[in-house]
């Protein structure tokens, strides 16, 4: 099925046109700023959790460390919403780029790992004395996944093959 009519329909919506064409800083620039701040909170907090699981901050009780987790989820939701808005502005630009799906897959796995680390280690009662190797590996892989997601996200600005359906 050719998705172009769907892209075209989204592109012609009032919201899409406003996001793309408004000269207001609240349109596209502000959404991009939000996306960067959300990324900082999500990947940054997740990285700190990963380092704790890997053994860098042993002096911090796991349960205490878990108190920072809500900031990761605030970052996640800021980026889910701002990401959808960026998609509405240029639906075909990302959705026709394989790299976009690779980025989403990296984020999906990294977020799943963060949830598994939360349940299995960070919020586990009683606190595990030794962190099982399975979770340490998960923490290490998720650090690499965040860097990969950030890199592929940035490269989306250079690898798209089309901007709008009209073109």
């Amino acid at each position, binding site marked *: 099925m050719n998705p172009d009519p769907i892209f075209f329909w989204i592109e012609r919506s009032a919201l899409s046109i406003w996001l793309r064409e408004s000269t207001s800083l609240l349109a596209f620039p502000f959404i991009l700023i939000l996306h960067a701040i959300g990324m900082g909170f999500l990947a940054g907090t997740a*990285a700190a959790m990963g380092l704790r699981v890997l053994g860098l901050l042993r002096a911090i009780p796991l349960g205490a460390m878990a108190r920072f987790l809500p900031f990761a989820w605030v970052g996640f939701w800021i980026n889910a919403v701002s990401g959808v808005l960026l998609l509405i502005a240029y639906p075909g630009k990302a959705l026709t780029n394989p790299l976009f799906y690779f980025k989403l897959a990296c984020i999906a796995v990294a977020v799943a790992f963060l949830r598994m680390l939360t349940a299995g280690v960070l919020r586990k009662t009683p606190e595990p004395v030794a962190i099982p190797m399975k979770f340490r590996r998960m923490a290490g892989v998720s650090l690499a996944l965040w860097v990969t997601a950030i890199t592929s996200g940035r490269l989306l600005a250079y690898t798209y093959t089309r901007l709008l359906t009209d073109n």
Partner: protein
Amino acid sequence: MMAEFLPWLEQWLKSTPASAFITLNTWVWSTCESIHFTGLCMLYGSVVLFDLRLLGVAKQVPLAALHRLIPMGVAGFAMNVGTGFMFLAGTPDQYLYNIAFRLKVLCLAIAGINILIFYLFLFRKVRSVAPGEDQ
């Protein structure tokens, strides 16, 4: 003075090897951007979490222990200064005369002063705060 200094700085930046490196190789700019974003996340994961703890979030976390994350923030900041210089050297005219860039540099300067004050006068007191002591 500014009227003479900025064009001079612009010319100097353009004459650096970094400028030629980033403008003549298309992959360098995008790679620097990815590093710049990763550095930003490293700052959030260390300095922002530490600041949140100082503001009263997660009081069960011992401050001295959380401070062990700061080297990650320093590494992130160093990555961002390095890649930031690359952008500046690549297209100095895009930044030097831009109000947003000037605001960013001003914020960085204030943040630097803030760090200096923190380590000179406050860190010794903060360091000894035990978990949950600062109710």
